[in-house]
């Protein structure tokens, strides 16, 4: 269905071409997952399928890309619209109209499909994706998972043979991600759609893939069976990590596969417990009490009680829209409480002057780029020193530690997602705040960048900072957090040691916990350490 012949793409200002001479044939009706670390050209590959690369992005494409016999050299993206449906990471950026039904019809209107056919296909798609209840709703009022399903539906109505998805579940909470993946599964199985997708959160998707395309910065691309390639891949989900640690072959890809093989492992671990992390009992540095906060007419937080201690890493989890970002914002003084009090390192955040507050509380927002204004990394560091009144060079020293070998003259927007996050973190850490808040830090990070972030955050906690991170990433919470707080509809529904909170929830449990339940093991590291030291 999709053929790549010796494809490489050279962008104008880049030193080396992306995708050096890629050959690839994706058969019809398969779900093919593109795997690889950041910066190996996954997005370029996806864009090349419908001709956005190079028609829209610029650059030179060598070789030939054909989709169902149509060559992207002769067909512009709009002429492939009836054949290839393209959905990006951010559904909001995809929407052209303002309500669900019109959005589903938009693509068909452009293709000139007869009104009667459009009517029928919209109804079919509403049913297929479970959107019938939402048909009259304004797109801005939908949740993240619903928006992503509408985005997929809006390209499905044109009956494309190929669906191309760039990180469709990265921004979604675990429940919404399952909604979207169930839909993809159904498309591949029932309609024979060919799906080509990338996803950093492999633990969510690798089990559904028929084929995996493994791209590495050095060495050729490999295309083949998911279980075989996962044995070679530098990026892999925890369930594969567990399989590697236990020496299983072929490697399991889903929790179900792993559970069936895990009986001996469970027996070996029976009676042993992972090293217990002692609960942190220091005096709280920040206390939130009976906090109620409205944004618009509706309360987003209702009577939240929370205490954050120095040396403790707390994960804040919950659905999209549960109030996580608002709670972080309130702690950083961005919102004024409607009732209740917040005390952060002795200050009342919304009444404090920003200059004083940033010495005590630092927040890295969901979009780290918002924090960065300057033209170069050097200028950004100088600005941070100036803002916080620290001696010149303090921020640069932090950057050197967190991001060794970064090019000082780069513009912050030319950094990779992970580097930009680390730069923003360094800027925030310049004042050495007592309380560090991070909003969705792992969105768009590959496993390597995530591992670096984990190290940095552990060091900060060991230094006596209190860390609160809002995240959808259950694996990160299991590995990093001493304590997990779950927020639902603005109320705290669970608060306790991570090991207890995440294991007791089917949605928030990490893969290792699901495989080894009812044993209390959470991460691959715990298990492999235990296997290395006989009982």
């Amino acid at each position: 269905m999709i053929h790549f012949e010796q494809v490489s793409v050279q962008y104008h200002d880049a030193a080396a071409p992306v995708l050096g001479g890629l050959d690839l044939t994706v058969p019809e009706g398969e779900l093919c997952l593109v795997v690889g670390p950041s910066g190996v050209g996954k997005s370029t590959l996806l864009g090349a399928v419908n001709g956005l690369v190079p028609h829209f992005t610029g650059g030179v494409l060598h070789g030939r890309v054909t989709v169902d016999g149509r060559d992207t050299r002769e067909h512009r993206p709009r002429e492939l619209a009836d054949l290839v449906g393209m959905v990006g990471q951010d559904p909001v950026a995809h929407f052209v109209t303002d309500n669900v039904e019109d959005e589903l019809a938009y693509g068909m209107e452009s293709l000139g499909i007869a009104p009667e056919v459009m009517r029928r296909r919209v109804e079919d798609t509403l049913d297929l994706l479970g959107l019938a209840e939402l048909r009259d709703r304004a797109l801005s009022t939908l949740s993240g998972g619903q928006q992503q399903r509408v985005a997929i539906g809006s390209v499905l109505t044109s009956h494309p043979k190929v669906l191309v998805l760039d990180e469709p579940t990265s921004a979604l909470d675990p429940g919404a991600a399952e909604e979207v993946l169930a839909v993809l599964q159904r498309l591949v199985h029932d309609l024979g759609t060919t799906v080509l997708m990338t996803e950093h959160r492999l633990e969510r998707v690798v089990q559904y893939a028929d084929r995996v395309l493994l791209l590495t910065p050095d060495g050729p691309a490999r295309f083949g069976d998911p279980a075989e390639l996962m044995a070679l891949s530098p990026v892999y989900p925890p369930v594969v990590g567990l399989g590697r640690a236990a020496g299983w072959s072929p490697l399991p890809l889903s929790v179900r596969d792993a559970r069936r093989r895990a009986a001996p492992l469970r027996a070996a671990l029976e009676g042993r417990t992972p090293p217990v992390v002692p609960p942190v009992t220091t005096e709280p540095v920040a206390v939130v009490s009976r906090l109620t906060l409205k944004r618009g007419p509706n309360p987003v937080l209702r009577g939240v009680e929370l205490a954050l201690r120095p040396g403790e890493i707390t994960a804040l989890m919950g659905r999209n829209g549960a109030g996580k970002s608002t709670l972080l914002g309130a702690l950083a003084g961005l919102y004024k409480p409607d009732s209740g009090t917040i005390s952060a390192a002795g200050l009342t955040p919304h009444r404090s002057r920003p200059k004083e507050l940033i010495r005590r509380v630092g927040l890295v927002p969901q979009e780290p780029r918002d924090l960065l204004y300057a033209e170069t990394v050097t200028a950004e560091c100088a600005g941070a020193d100036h803002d916080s009144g620290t001696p010149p060079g303090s921020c640069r020293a932090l950057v050197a530690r967190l991001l060794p070998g970064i090019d000082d003259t780069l513009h912050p927007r030319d950094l990779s997602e992970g580097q930009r996050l680390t730069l923003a973190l360094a800027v925030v850490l310049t004042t050495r705040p007592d309380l560090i808040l991070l909003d969705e830090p792992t969105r768009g990070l590959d496993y390597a960048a995530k591992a670096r972030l984990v190290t940095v955050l552990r060091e900060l906690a060991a230094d006596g900072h209190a860390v609160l991170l809002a995240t959808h990433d259950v694996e990160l919470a299991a590995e990093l957090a001493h304590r997990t707080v779950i927020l639902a509809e603005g109320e705290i529904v669970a608060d306790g040691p991570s090991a207890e909170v995440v294991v007791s929830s089917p949605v928030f449990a990490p893969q290792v916990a699901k495989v080894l339940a009812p044993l209390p093991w959470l991460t691959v590291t715990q298990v492999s350490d235990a296997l290395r030291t006989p009982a």
Partner: protein
Amino acid sequence: MPTPNRTRQPRPVRSTRSAIGPRHLHPGAWWLWAIGLGAAASRTTNPLLLLLIVAVSGYVVAARRSTEPWARSYTAFVKVALAVLGIRLLFTVFLGSGVGGTHVLFTLPQLPLPDWAQGVRIGGAVTLEGLLYSLYQSLRLATLLICVGAANALANPARLLRALPGALYEAGVAAVVALTFSPNLVADVQRIRSARRLRGRSDKGLRSLLSVGLPVLESALERSVSLAATMDSRGFGRTADLPRRVARSIGALTLTGLLAVCVACYGLLTEGTVRWALPVLLIGLAALGAGLLLGSRRSVRTRYRPDPWAWREWLVAGSGLAVAGLLIWLSGRDPAAFNPPAVPPTVPELPLLPALAVLLGLLPAFVAPAPPRPGAPK
């Protein structure tokens, strides 16, 4: 180019929305109704008639607006109208008005100005006549604004643009994109200002507002580029090939049509009816229509479930146009009642027949279908 997807269906399948039950009225009907009320308001300075028109529009909006975000725009327009009124009166108080008068209400200290500033006055006597004259004039403008606000609140502007003929489709999309652009821009400004606070800079004052300009523009630009990419990959801009001669005549017809309509509107709305205006309007409309009809052949687009134009639409649009027509006719017969003199100040009277005519504009409150409530069980 016939696409493989274009198949014929037996006729009974309906492609327009059903005209039965709660639904959105055709946006064109609401705009015609509001334009009718506005045109009526433009013929009079009688404050009672103008207030009556405002009341009629307000009642209809209260009765028939939906729960969607744009329905709240009516209040915003009323506020703007009141601001216009207030500013005009303040100007009259401080700068005087061209209308002489004998009823001096109070006298402000007058600023002496050199000779070359003759005709400009700052401070001085404030007369009742001057204030009344400005009040009448600005009330007319305020009423026009409120009529536009009523149309905005009742009909989603994006929906109106969807109803444009195919030839204007691309201009319509540009307008829709621009409409969604401004709320996004406001959200960006808020987000980036709060990020400034996180860096320890002040988020208050003009300087902080100015300094977010560049990042806001940057993110707006990025959003536009990504929107363009999606629209391209969803088939936006597919066109059918037209012979060159046809393409040229489309341009000529549309342009002359638009010009003629503009000139004719000017003629119709100036004081004292101009005889050539009506025929020019008709010719202009015909040329425009032909141009748009031909132009639609260039686009391969089809339209998903257009809003129907049923008898309710005829009644709503008709009521507005009837108000306009009757008031224009009556104003010719009794100009004094429509423009109560400010010199000497008299108490304006409410002329009976025009008032009854304006009340016709209430019809939509009863005949327009109730808008659907999203989320309500069907």
